[in-house]
């Protein structure tokens, strides 16, 4: 009787465990082949974790994940070099038309204004931020900081982070031609962390102790606030395929939208989106 109980319990344990871990990955059973993924750098943590789990469940599947930026993602998927091209911005109309792309938004990422931790400024209004970036406000004293010149930092054209910042934080306003241009979230963080007079912007997931995010029009930049709408400077992260996805690629996209995929997205500090 006792023995029977133990065996039963063990069997239940094994069953529930395999049900919990294997179920989302079941669809990959018996599959073979490879998926190449490239593009937006914000996506990499999610893609890599998903790839790792799929590959350890099925040794016959090989998934490579590369960065390169949104533009690279569009180009490579469009030309058939990779199966999935990631972008941190919505596809442009001519990109969709030229390559016949299908797009899959799967997560929300907030973009936050960052300044040096030494900077005393604790809050900026949209108007102040716009004037700072337009070059109308040139001294931190004018917004309640120390008497020091403001050093502007922006991202390069075509950057998803830049696009959402320009559209939602400075209302498509002009940016001073004197602004320094850096080419990644990491480079932005380094520049602002080293420069006491700097102002820049990064994806919320990139914020750590080396930089400080002042309140923007009363809103605190956290992923929770980005998810529940209390922080408005947000963008979607997209996977893109050439035509309707099929085979392994379709399974991979399904997996990202599955509960386990959504969990991976949360662990990577983004907010998962439901499939549209």
């Amino acid at each position, binding site marked *: 009787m006792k023995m029977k109980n133990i065996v039963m319990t063990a069997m239940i344990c094994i069953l529930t465990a395999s049900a919990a871990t294997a179920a989302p990955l079941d669809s990959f059973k018996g599959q073979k082949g490879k998926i190449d993924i490239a593009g937006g750098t914000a996506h990499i943590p999610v893609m890599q974790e998903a790839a790792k789990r799929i590959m350890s469940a099925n040794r016959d599947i090989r998934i490579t994940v590369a960065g390169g930026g949104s533009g690279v993602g569009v180009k490579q998927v469009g030309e058939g070099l990779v199966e999935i091209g990631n972008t941190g911005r919505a596809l442009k109309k001519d990109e969709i038309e030229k390559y016949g792309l299908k797009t899959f938004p799967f997560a929300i990422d907030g973009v936050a204004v960052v300044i040096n931790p030494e900077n005393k400024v604790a809050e900026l209004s949209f108007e102040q931020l716009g004037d700072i970036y337009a070059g109308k406000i040139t001294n931190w004293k004018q917004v309640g900081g120390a008497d020091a*010149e403001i*050093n502007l930092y922006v991202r390069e054209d*075509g950057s998803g982070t830049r696009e959402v910042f320009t559209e939602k934080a400075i209302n498509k306003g002009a940016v001073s031609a004197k602004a*320094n*241009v850096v*080419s990644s979230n990491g480079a932005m963080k380094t520049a602002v962390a080293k420069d006491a007079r700097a102002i820049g912007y990064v994806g919320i997931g990139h914020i750590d102790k080396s930089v400080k995010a002042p309140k923007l029009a009363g809103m605190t930049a956290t992923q929770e606030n980005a998810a529940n709408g209390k922080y408005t400077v947000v963008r979607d992260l997209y996977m893109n395929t050439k035509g309707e996805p099929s085979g392994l690629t379709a399974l991979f996209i399904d997996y990202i939208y599955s509960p386990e995929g959504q969990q991976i997205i949360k662990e990577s500090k983004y907010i998962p989106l439901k499939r549209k």
Partner: protein
Amino acid sequence: MNDKKPLWLSASALYVTALLSTVFVFIIFCAAEGLFMSGPTLFSSVWAPDSQQFGILPMVAATLALSFSSLIIGWLLALGCLCYIHGFGGKTSASLLSALLRIMTAIPTVVFGFASVFLLVPLIRDAFGGSGFSWLTATLVLSLLITPTMAIAMEGAAAQTAAETSLTAAALGLSKAENFVWVVLPASRKWLRGAALLGFGRAAGDTMIPTMLAGNAVQYPGSPIESFRTLTAHIGLALSSDVGGTAYYSLFVAGGILLALSAGANLLLRSLRGDGEE
């Protein structure tokens, strides 16, 4: 001139020539498309692809300014190194310097750039104001980067001349330094110019240093402590985030201009060298 030249020699020469011509033709074709698409806005001062403005003139000016400023400083440094190694330095320290220059050529530019972001940029910012990402910062590092290449090119020629003339000079009672100044240096003039050409090519073509240190703001070079964007940095920045469309094709025009620039500098220095000189 020699009938017995092996087939593989001609074949490889032909192959390389064909490959290079293909590159030239490709760039010229794509540049033509870029010119056609962007029209006259290309030769303006505003780069704002969102509003169909593709001006690349500020970047042409920045490339020229940065190349020449780095070339001048780097060439003088290289000449200084040469003088130390062949004329005035002690034997041990001279060979140490020579070894150091060779090691420096092997350091990847990204290492120079990265170290400078942390060390030089804050120094420049505190000393002169601005953000520290500037013409001056990029010039200092870029000149350091091209110095070894130029010094080694100069040294090769100087070492040979010094070896040929040292006995005669000693017989005439010239010291090593005197021989260097009056005999070796004038005899190596051609190589000093050749080294400058090499240095210019490297300075104009380098991408990592200007991208990491010059700040990349699209504006004409005004003050040494202000930020600007070179053509190479521009191509690197725009390529990583934009594909297709006018902005993308305008990059080929930038590449074409870069090509014309270094080809032009080559021809200029070649004609300066002259034929009568040995």
